């Protein structure tokens, strides 16, 4: 237990060196809101903790080429307070702001939420729907991968042991584009999603959907990018026919587990309802952004 060591490197390369050179399990620390709980419960027993907080750029939000670059360890609270980001990607921001209480918000990061690889992580469906990419640094340099390709299963990611995420990119928006995220929990706050639904759409001048991405969380081992849901929306003005197709496609995509938070049937039903409601919000927001 006391064999655990802690390092706070000042550069990306130094961090990679520490990760590569660790004698046992090495864990990257962003906000620590997952990692500390797991350390305490003994679910993870690393030999080294690499705290990223001193790495330049790891915390902060920049507007680049009309899109956004979000440092991997940027807290939910900072994301929530960024007015420009909230205007363009309201779904990503509302999803991030659902993570935990105010105390957790002040620490929790997008990278931690993603790399903890819980199927119920709130920001992940929203980031996937938004078309976000992760920039991963490793000994061979940097690579950029779509967020949906980072998590491979509960608690597992496609990152090598000497890699970590340095930032996320959110692309420049076409006009009349917006996103929305809704989650279902039994309590009003401070709870883990039973189902999460992220919807991102672009409309034409007539209000017809020209592009869509829909992602569902907590209904399968990883967050899903559901092409059939997107297809249900494209070409529609979100009439009842499109909503019904979306609802059906969402339910079809679900492979949930049965647990105390919700039965399989219940989760499937809720996924359909949330997809409908999130789509309605995204359409309304997109129409308002002309």
């Amino acid at each position: 237990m006391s064999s655990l060591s802690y390092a706070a490197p000042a550069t990306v390369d130094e961090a990679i060196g520490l990760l590569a050179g660790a004698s046992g399990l090495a864990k990257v620390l962003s906000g620590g809101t997952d990692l500390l709980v797991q350390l305490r419960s003994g679910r993870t027993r690393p030999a080294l903790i690499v705290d990223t907080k001193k790495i330049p750029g790891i915390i902060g939000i920049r507007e680049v080429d009309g899109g956004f670059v979000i440092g991997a360890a940027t807290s939910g609270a900072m994301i929530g307070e960024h007015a420009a980001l909230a205007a363009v990607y309201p779904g990503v921001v509302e999803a991030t702001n659902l993570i935990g209480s105010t105390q957790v918000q002040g620490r929790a990061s997008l990278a931690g939420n993603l790399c903890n690889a819980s199927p119920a992580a709130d920001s992940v469906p929203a980031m996937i729907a938004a078309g976000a990419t992760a920039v991963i640094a490793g000994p061979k340099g940097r690579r950029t991968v779509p967020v949906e390709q980072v998590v491979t299963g509960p608690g597992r990611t496609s990152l090598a042991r000497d890699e970590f995420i340095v930032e996320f990119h959110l692309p420049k928006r076409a006009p009349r584009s917006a996103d929305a995220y809704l989650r279902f929990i039994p309590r009003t706050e401070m709870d883990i999603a039973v189902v999460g639904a992220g919807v991102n759409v672009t409309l034409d001048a007539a209000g017809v959907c020209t592009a869509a991405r829909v992602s569902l969380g907590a209904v399968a081992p990883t967050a899903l990018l559901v092409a059939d849901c997107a297809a249900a929306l494209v070409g529609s003005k979100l009439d009842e026919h499109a909503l019904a197709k979306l609802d059906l496609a969402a339910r079809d995509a679900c492979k949930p587990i049965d647990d105390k938070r919700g039965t399989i049937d219940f989760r499937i039903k809720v996924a359909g309802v949330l997809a409908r409601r999130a789509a309605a919000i995204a359409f309304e927001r997109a129409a308002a952004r002309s």
Partner: protein
Amino acid sequence: MTLRLRLNGRPVQAQADPAMRLSDLLRDVLGLTGTKIGCNAGDCGACTVLLDGRQVCACLVPAARAEGCDIRTVEGLAEGGALNALQAAFLRHGAAQCGICTPGMLMAATDLLARLPTPTEAQVQDALGGVLCRCTGYRKIIDAVLDVAGPSPPVAGAMGARLPKVDGPAKLTGAERFGADALPDEAFLTIRAIRSPHAHARFTLGDFAPLLAAHPGLLRVLTAADLPGARVFGIYPTGKDQPVLADGLVRHRGEPVCALLGDAATLAGIPEGDVPVAWEPLPEVTFAAGGPDLHAHAPGNVLCRGLVARGDPATGFAAAAARADIATATGFVEHAYIEPEAGYARRVGDGMEVVACTQTPYMDRDEIALILGIPPERVRVIPTAVGGGFGGKLDLSIQPLACVAAWLTLRPVRMVYGRGESMAASTKRHPARIAAAAAADAGGRLTAFTFHGDFDTGAYASWGPTVANRVPVHAMGPYAVPHVRCTTAALHTNGPPAGAFRGFGVPQAAIAGEALMDMLAAQLGLDPWDIRRINALGEGSTTATGQMLGAGAALPECLDAIRPRWQALRQEASDFNRQAGVLRRGAGLACMWYGIGNTSMSNPSEMVIGIGADGRCTLFSGAVDIGQGSNTIMVQIAAEALGVPPEALNLVSGDTKTTRDAGKTSASRQSFVSGNAARLAGAALRAEILRRANAGPEAMIMLHDGRISVVSGDAATILDPAAMAPDAEGLVLRGEGRFDPPTTALDAHGQGIPYACYAFAAQAALVEVDTALGTVRVLRIVAAHDVGRAVNPTLVEGQIHGGIAQGLGLALMEEYLPGRTDNLHDYLIPTIGDVPEIETILVERPDPLGPYGAKGVGEPALVATAPAILNAIADAIGARLTRVPATPDRVLAALAR
């Protein structure tokens, strides 16, 4: 590593292990125990501090991260020794009950107010949403934050005054000592129980020598063979059945099989799997399916049965115009006090001293004496402040193992439960399986009521008999019914021991009974209010046990008081439902009654009040304040009886050496029973002072400058305590009071006088149901409570709010599943966002036996809430849920039927 940081404005340096958390750094290294640990997992917020001005959970921050930071804790709030404005607002509003959540609440609110000096209610809820409170129902906390700039008006008088809690300031500054804050002066050992992962299993312990050799800090391993005295304990004098350490057989998950004794760090580092225990799992006896007998003394796994029978139900049903039947089910419910059980024991000569959180010091003392095999006089129980109890701290927790270890090793031994251990090892609310039927004539008058309830009492008896006896008396609800048959059985299973939890089975029964009232009303075309009012027990009514109620029975008054609100809620629901959509609203009403004190059993309280040679007047109260405010209530009542302002009294509370037995803090009995003892003690001291001064009963007593002035008309007599001879306890003048509520035993048919006093209430709920998702939001609760006389309206309202929050949890979200919900993110309790606006109406019709008319409210607050919410859901969606919690999937399933 060495850390440098600013703590409450001062630079500090500390040595910390890199794996250490900020919470442990503050508490264990820097000695600031105001920051509390409720879960160590980010779920409860009790550890909230400010890090560079922003609220964080100290348990989620690596101490290493605090390097160079500015940390502010509750100890840094008071200004120049005086409470700051926020603390004063908390005190004024009664926002701290037990106080364990208070430091976290204060720090979260401090963060908010620094950014938004005049927040809205929604902003307060948002900012404080990460801190859980199990006592207050949050409403007074919100009021306090919104009123941070408000004035603190002076409080006059004793009885009926909104006196700030006498122990309030300590809870607001972080000075209060809870179970985990009290440390022995000498070096101490820590004990860690190894608990069964199986619900039912045989086990053998292996050779501990390798484990001891591998960990030099591990001193020894305690097993059942080491126990010096009784090997089992239990609430009732006969039928003690719960092993201190299991001996080859475990009957529930979480049962201790052995215990490691050593230094804290060593114990924490030993993986569970390294302790040599070989398990042989056995089939689990469940509530649903039963199974082979678990105890030789309980054939058929029936621990005990209860019965109340009057008249002939068949006649009543035959004569009825309407009949309703229902079957309901409830699960285990966890107390979820924010303070996990903690304390320490140390051997003092041939005696034992135990410092721990408890609701019942005297029962603990006697039980510990049995376990150690010594007389009770050699055990001293010193209760710490209790961070919430609700019945759960009526059973022993850390005491047996800590005491045995301290007894054997001659060293102080500390034991602190983690959240998971607290949930796995402590008692629960009894699951119930109820079948009930009720009938009424065409005018709505009840003609018959039958009820059978099976209660899952789990592996050991605990308070199971209390539930089995209390429920039949209350099951028909607060209504006059001529023909009644109510039966109960407490059944053993391999579930966690079910014990005492606010209401002792009555809340489960009320869910069935109050549904039946609505079903009958619907059949007869009556308003739910009317059928209740027609049948309400009041002065002169006869109960199902044949007891004639006196002037204190005020349900009719509660119903009359709530009527306009009820009508408004119904109107609001039907107006809302005129619009189409997935949202549906409904209004629900429920009543309850609750017998104060033990059922048909002597349960006396004794109090002493006295004046020392220095002229200081002290109330010695053995009543343990678990947050509900009995410390303050006793002072108010004794002061009233003595005829002095409450500020004139000091309080010594709840140590088995320095105070008399005031019974346990349960059954809503402290205000009524101990309150009467305090009143009698105050009156006795007053009589003694008047006698010495030769003054008449109208004389005024004043305590000042170490002297006692007795003023009568324009004659004044001064008594000088310094000139009087002190007795063995250092008192020169004393008054003693004893009260035991007059009850009689119940006969074979459950007839008799089980309680000397009953409290009544009517509550109404307005809910909104999302019919596509099945979610239920409670929008408003109105609660009219018969409290006899409100000794302190602020505290009474606080009890009602807190009870309602727990009732809401029972109705909508709480169900403990052994092994699956042993934390506060899988076991959900209401957060600040779940508890709606609550309007309390205090109906004050003095009880002839109560101290100045007062009666208890602790449990009554909870009983009616879940039934009112369930009735409101039925009103909203036209379908009735018969299983709680009414989770969204169950609501959808009910809609689909």
